[in-house]
């Protein structure tokens, strides 16, 4: 297991290098001159030219890439083109809101998703199952931003239960995380359900029943644990969705998070910020997947003992 983790960690390096090249190319493929955008419509040509020089945009791509990579490793991520602030200063305050949002969303969706999935697997074919699963399908059929706007209209404006926007208190995160988590809950619920249904057909479930165990123990100890092994992987996959969804949710609820930062920075051609945020995203995604794989291994003795 340790070796496996080590191996995977080593694997990250080449992936990140390829990713960084892709990100770099990607950024520079996007048309738009950051100097011109930062300087604004009223800027003079001279001003723009000096700025290009200062930002190193006139250097050959290879040099720019080298600087970018060197910067990453030496901890000098450069200054944001847009604000002039060091990139880390721009990024770090954005991490917390996104993190809280992500954690809130994933936690409640995992709990709700698994519970819903289990209940409807047990009640398979009954009315409850039917309603719950259509609900779950609805969850992944709603455009996130639409759901967010609707929730805000109802719960903040009409009922005044939660703040409309912002990150001032934890209660501000409730609506955004419901919005963001709805789809994930639905995915997890559907997955848990089908995994539970499969598992409930397994021979060892029959064995545990034949032992005289109560249905509660059969489900919660024998079946659920096995299905968690499967569900872990699907939870891992949801992180990609989470990141993308956070862009929309942060826009709707005015949350100063990484997703919003990324979009704004892309629009502003704030290259230094874009490439760093994208690298962070990918890195995070890879690490989460690694964690998920490790958890999968831990949960699944077959893999743990190989």
């Amino acid at each position, binding site marked *: 297991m340790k070796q496996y983790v080590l191996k995977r960690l080593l694997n990250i390096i080449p992936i990140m290098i390829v990713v960084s090249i892709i990100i770099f190319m990607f950024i520079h493929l996007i048309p738009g001159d950051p100097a011109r955008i930062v300087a604004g419509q009223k800027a003079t040509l001279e001003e723009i030219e000096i700025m290009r020089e200062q930002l190193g945009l006139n250097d050959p791509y290879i040099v720019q890439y080298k600087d970018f990579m060197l910067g990453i490793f030496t901890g000098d991520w450069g200054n944001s083109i847009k604000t002039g602030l060091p990139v880390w200063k721009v990024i770090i305050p954005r991490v917390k809101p996104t993190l809280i949002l992500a954690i809130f969303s994933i936690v409640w969706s995992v709990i709700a998703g698994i519970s819903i999935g289990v209940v409807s697997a047990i009640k398979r074919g009954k009315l409850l199952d039917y309603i719950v699963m259509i609900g779950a399908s609805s969850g992944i059929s709603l455009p996130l*931003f639409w759901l967010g*706007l609707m929730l805000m209209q109802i719960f903040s404006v009409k009922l005044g239960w939660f703040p409309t926007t912002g990150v001032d208190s934890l209660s501000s995160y409730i609506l955004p995380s419901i919005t963001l988590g709805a789809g994930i809950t639905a995915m997890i619920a559907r997955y848990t359900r089908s995994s539970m249904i499969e598992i409930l057909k397994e021979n060892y479930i029959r064995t545990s029943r034949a032992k005289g165990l109560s249905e509660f123990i059969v489900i919660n100890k024998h079946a659920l644990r096995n299905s968690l092994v499967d569900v872990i992987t699907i939870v891992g996959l949801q992180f*990609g*969705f989470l*990141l993308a969804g956070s*862009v929309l949710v942060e826009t709707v609820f005015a949350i100063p998070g990484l997703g919003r930062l990324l979009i704004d920075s892309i629009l502003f051609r704030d290259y230094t910020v874009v490439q760093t945020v994208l690298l962070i*995203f990918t890195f995070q*995604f890879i690490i989460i997947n690694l964690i998920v794989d490790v958890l999968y291994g831990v949960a699944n003795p077959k893999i743990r003992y190989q």
Partner: protein
Amino acid sequence: MEEVKMQEAKHEDFKIENPIKEFVRKFLKKKSAVVALGFIFFLVILAIFEPTPYDIDETDYDNILSEPNSEHFFGTDEYGRDVLSRIVTGTRLSLSVALTAVTIGAFVGSVLGIIAGYYGGLLGSLIMRFCDILFSFPGLLLAIGIVAIIGPGLTNVVVAISIYGIPTFTRIIRSATLSIKELLYIEASRSIGVSDTRLLVKHVFPGTLPSLIVAYTMRMGTAIISASSLSFLGFGASPTNPDWGAMLSTGRDYIGVAPHMLLYPGLMIFFTVLAFNLLGDGLRDTLDPKLD
């Protein structure tokens, strides 16, 4: 006593359904999927015939943002255009964007997936790494990036969505291929001397079809949502097109004034995506592929 030689029995053959009939019978049992299919069928009819009460570009500046009424069932928009007509016309647009995007994604993804699954090796790992990397960018961001590079507009939305659909299909088809490859009938065919091409086309690919069909249906929903999200962020179809996402995007500016502009396109997207998802569920239950 030893010789209990028995005659060839008359009842040797049973009436057994052919696979299509069996599939249909099983499918018809899934009521929500049948309803969903009906709804999709209805959408297709809308898309083909576009039975719009008004010309979608017909503006009426004296009658803007009017609430749903007997003349305009879904009200009018900021130019006084009939929302219902635009939604109906948008059906063709939204469906064809999704259909094209998913088809391209599915095609490329399947080819890559089959190659990666069947041949494996260096090529296979390269393909899968490529997918990992594509996967490690949040899907929507990838689409935004692509649209930012190649510019907004429907064609580019299609390209963006199909590109980010590729890794999904590659993975699904690869894992289907991997499990089919292990099946005995593949080995049986190989032992006969069937060529790789024939094996892939005749034996492996049809085996991945159930997975493909289900993934395809599900992705239709995702594609519609993605297209509308792109429009919402301003990266989507040109606003002159009656695209649902674009309508939503405009509609949100009128959220307190003309909620019908946000509500109906939103519901339309919701029901359409829901229909594809329910259909996908139904198909999966009937075709029973193991999706990861």
